[in-house]
């Protein structure tokens, strides 16, 4: 059960909740379940997101494992110049 923090403007799709409890062993599972549980999040997920796990930002990393005590934060997909 990972604790996932989503950014404020996405909360209209989750009934106002910022911290979501998602049962998932890795990032891919977590993203799939997020989209299934809150379909309003799907467009943003499709556009792309990065995931921060315990302070390290993963731009892709679907297979990154999630532990119950992992701090997971959803972020817009990182870009650079």
């Amino acid at each position, binding site marked *: 059960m990972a604790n996932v923090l989503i950014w404020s403007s996405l909360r209209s799709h989750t009934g106002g909740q910022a911290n979501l409890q998602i049962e998932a062993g890795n990032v891919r599972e977590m993203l799939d379940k997020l989209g299934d549980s809150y379909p309003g999040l799907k*467009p943003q997920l499709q*556009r792309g997101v990065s995931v921060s796990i315990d302070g*390290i*930002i993963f*731009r892709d*990393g679907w297979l990154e494992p999630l532990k119950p005590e992992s*701090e997971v934060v959803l972020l817009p997909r990182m870009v*650079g*110049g």
Partner: protein
Amino acid sequence: MPLDNPQSAARKFNLVGTRPVRPDGVDKVTGRARFGADAVAPGMLVGRILRSPHAHAKIKSIDTSKAEKLSGVKAIVTRDDFPDKTDGDALLYDVLYNVMAREKALYEGHAVAAVAATSASVARQALKLIKVDYEVLPHVTDVDEAMKPGAPVLHPKMFTDGVEPKPKKASNIVRRYEFGHGDVAAGFKHADVIVERSFKTEATHQGYIEPHACLASFGPDGQAELWVCTQGHFMVRDTCARLLGMDVSKLRVTASEIGGGFGGKTTVFIEPVALVLSKKANRPVKVVMTREEVFKSTGPTSSASMDVKIGATRDGRIVSADMELRYQGGAFQGSPVEFGAMAAFAPYDLENVRTIGYDVVCNRPKQAAYRAPGAPMANFAVESVIEEIAHKLNIPSIDMRIINAAKEGTKSSYGPIYGPIGLRATLERAKEHPHFKAPLGKNQGRGMACGFWFNFGGQSCVTMNVGIDGTVSLTVGSPDIGGSRASMCLMTAEELGIPYDKVRAVIADTGTLGYSDVTDGSRTTFATGMACIQAARDAIKKLCARAAQIWGISEEAVTWENGYAKPAGPNAGDFAPLSLKEIAAQAAQTGGPIAGHYELNADGAGVSFATHICDAEVDPETGFTKITRYTVLQDAGKAVHPSYVEGQFQGGAVQGIGWALNEEYIYGKDGRLQNAGFLDYRIPVCSDLPMIDTVILEIPNPGHPYGVRGVGETSIVPPLATVANAVSHAVGVRMTELPISPPKLLKALETLPQQKKAAE
């Protein structure tokens, strides 16, 4: 990949950290190096693009019949030659629409048609013969104007995302973002001082000296080759292949040397057009942009309008921070407003923080990344207000930052909790720097700011092959935009324990190496470097195995040290060490060629923090600002080649100085760009500047074997505020609109009351 030896303070390096000459250096100082426009092919045609003179217009019809009859014209393409193969991918569709206009021309300079002809003069004549029937529409180029109800709407199906209830009317507002935590309203109640201000910055261009250029060669067998100056040739291949509906493996892209990118060459503009022209003409087609086309038809950064409100208690502690950012990204969605919103307060430890961002479209060219996209403008606004608060509370600027600085364990304003970061270290180091103690003269002011960029890792692939004489060919997939080849060779030679000049780096084309992400995001030394280190370690394993074979002992009993395979201990046997050269000489007989390989999607890129200090002198008669002293302090984690790290610090700082003082896109009432050339789009020149002093800090990044952090982008983040703060102190006026050009400064001085001047 974790840091080697996390316990020991610093690994002792032999080569990493030295300053050898770069391997491509001689080619670049003799004019031998070949850039985008330097390639030729037999039978080559010249390609030129016809562009909309209108900021917003329906394209009713395009008549190419007269142009087709002109002798020397071999192919003409329009939107009809670009069928939609984007398969529902909205962002890719925008790229397609930007590359060649479809129903409408959405900005002055939008590509409408293109020709390939036997000479430049025939191509130019042909463009004049193409008849486009435009229905001119009202246009809008200012971000705040574009958001108003009643503004001309660019996309009839654009309904703002991220707002409740969902709008029923189309507008130019793509999306609303919000980040933050805590309760800003409650926080402000505890503030002893609150400053609320609005800021505006104008669009700027990356300003690379080399215009976009490419040479496309499309064969009747459906295979194509492309020579192009780009930050990412794999990205060019994949994007063009998708747009043209061809197999990725049928398009081979070679990256030329690149004359600057800074993010502006991380997408495609002319490349799909060159390919389609070449396909139609069945001959190679070279397309080179003019400087005017670069300004009008590539990807400048966003202009921004921002409101900031910060409250602090008397001791300097910020209790609440609130900000709204409005960025226009040109005619299509995707301004970097969310990154501005995330980066704005990122250096600080805040209990209550909120940033709201609006992505807005208007009739300007589609924006592209520019070094830390979205962050410089946001940083300008926030650091200006923090400076004002420091001044009101009579707290030194640097202390105001130190009091509120984020550290390990701080919850960042954008969500994650920070690991080990170097912000406090750069601030403490800056505080001790002699720059702060240097005396200031008349009409001079000192400013500072701190800032950061996220950095990321991304995909890299590296192969290293050991030659018969023990020298090494290192093949990488990252175009070298700032000297990275030298760093790759340093890291590889360090691992192998051989001299630097025994390793030669080559940038492979898309047909000869696995995928590498674009050279951006300050990722090359970090991610491609990591792949080089791992490829070298892979080769070392194999070299040890060969030595084991030669000695007749087990592989586990062999170790690698300073370029030699050695028995691991006295029990392994008494064998003289074998050098890389000696093992290489026996490669054929011991199993064949020896190579090392690694590919990865690197993560764990650490953030890079910086503090900048600037002294500015203002001439009150002319409004001219001269930068008299500038210092950059930035955390590099580990500086592999210090000269090129310094180069990134200096280059980014000077781009920021230009953004603060001179550079801006100036639009006429007709929606046309008024200053599409280097005379009136004024970037800093040599005589504008002093030496740019640099201090490299090295707080190791735990996510990299050597501790490397990306450095390329952070240095453009603090200078806008640093310069604005310096000028504001020099003249006693808070400058809230960039650039602080002489006319703007003079106007501000005229409106300044005399008593305020005395007080400051």
